[in-house]
């Protein structure tokens, strides 16, 4: 069945679920696929950019092969009220899974469905899935609900993807500008490879590293160590038109790195994108040179992503660098914990630095500065 056929069938058969069904969270089963398709159709209409959830046989196959590992909130009659998933996404390390795609039927938004999914994942999935080196989430920062859930799952904060999502994606939630996402990574299999820490962002990397007990063979990596002249850059580009984001995975920076980045920036600009993200392999001895090239090109530090790379073994890790192509306005950046606020602050400080030093466009907060969400514990007395 094609996407178009699946969408036509969904449109013809669509029905709302009755409210008040008793819900149980459990692993996805093939019989759930039509219910998952209905849920995606209800939440995203025909606009979800990936075919799998709409086409039951594709979703079943993706779960069978382990590309997606979904869980569902189901009623006794088999109705699917919610779903979430671990899935292979941007990282070149296919054992580094993203956790997300949390959808809840509109009639159950005020229910415990989302938390039942999280509790199930907490008990049965987080850190326990076979063949998984790391799990990560990108939690929106204009509210703290997703972050709280990620923290329950043991995902420490390690980066801020400044203005990753367009305002329009969260218009219904009152976002006042582009929405930033906190990068949170849970390390499952730490690995033990080399880590070349770029001199220009050493302080930021060292501030985040203690979030996990990583055993790394750490090397300082300065701009003076250039790659061999005949070494070509290994670069994979992903273009997210809806978000206006270009994401680059640099598996190996070569002698042509600065020129390749310049070309990618030009292409992103041509595409009308707002933001370019670079994930740089810190297992490369030339990471320091490449980071300096990025800095000179107006990039700023975005985060440290353990185990982002890796073909046959866990790791290496990645450094996230970012650059805006146009001046942007940001929605509020709220974090649950002071540790999240600290990560956000060091990223935003470096963005300001890039603006001052290289005239790079910067994003401006529409509201107050970054602050950990206030709770009773923060109140005096």
């Amino acid at each position, binding site marked *: 069945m094609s996407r178009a056929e699946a969408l036509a069938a969904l449109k013809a058969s669509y029905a709302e679920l009755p409210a008040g069904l008793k819900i149980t969270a459990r692993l996805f089963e093939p019989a759930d696929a039509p219910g998952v398709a209905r849920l995606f159709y209800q939440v995203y209409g025909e606009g979800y950019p990936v075919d799998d959830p709409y086409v039951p046989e594709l979703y079943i196959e993706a779960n069978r092969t382990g590309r997606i590992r979904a869980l569902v909130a189901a009623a006794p009659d088999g109705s699917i009220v919610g779903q979430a998933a671990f899935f292979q996404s941007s990282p070149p390390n296919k054992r580094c899974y993203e956790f997300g795609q949390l959808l809840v039927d509109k009639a159950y938004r005020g229910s*415990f469905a989302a938390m039942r999914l999280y509790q199930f994942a907490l008990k049965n999935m987080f850190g326990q899935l076979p063949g998984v080196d790391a799990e990560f989430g990108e939690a929106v920062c204009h509210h703290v609900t997703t972050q709280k859930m990620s923290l*329950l799952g043991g995902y420490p904060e390690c980066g801020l993807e400044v203005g990753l999502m367009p305002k329009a994606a969260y218009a219904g939630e009152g976002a006042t500008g582009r929405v930033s996402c906190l990068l949170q990574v849970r390390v499952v299999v730490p690995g033990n490879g080399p880590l070349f820490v770029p001199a220009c962002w050493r302080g930021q990397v060292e501030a985040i590293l203690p979030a996990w007990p990583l055993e790394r063979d750490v090397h300082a990596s300065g701009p003076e160590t250039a790659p061999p002249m005949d070494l070509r850059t290994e670069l994979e580009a992903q273009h997210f038109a809806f978000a206006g984001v270009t994401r680059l995975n640099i598996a190996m920076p070569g002698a042509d790195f600065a020129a390749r980045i310049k070309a990618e920036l030009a292409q992103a600009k041509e595409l009308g994108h707002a933001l370019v993200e670079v994930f740089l392999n810190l297992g490369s001895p030339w990471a320091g040179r490449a980071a300096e090239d990025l800095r000179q090109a107006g990039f700023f530090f975005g985060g440290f992503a353990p185990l982002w790379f890796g073909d046959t073994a866990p790791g290496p890790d990645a450094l996230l660098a970012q650059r805006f192509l146009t001046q942007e306005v940001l929605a509020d950046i709220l974090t649950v914990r002071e540790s999240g606020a600290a990560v956000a602050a060091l990223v935003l400080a470096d963005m300001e630095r890039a603006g001052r030093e290289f005239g790079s466009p910067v994003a401006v907060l529409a509201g107050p500065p970054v602050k950990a969400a206030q709770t*009773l514990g923060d109140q005096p007395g």
Partner: protein
Amino acid sequence: MSIDLEELRRLLVAAGVRPEVAEKIDPAVPLLKQGLDSVDFPSFCAVVEERAGVPLDEETALTLRTLNDFVAYLAGRA
């Protein structure tokens, strides 16, 4: 199973509520007025459900507003 206030405070922390918040919770005042939100409360209910071995559906959970309500409910199910 009977669960006392101190155990409920420990379960609040297990549900993701910060210890300093859990410690200050007044057992007679609704949890949602003391810093718990739409993530904390269902998470707490799920942890209580597991610890007590008592199913806690949403309809029931929403009638339990304070820690004292939880103590009384769980004592009644003992």
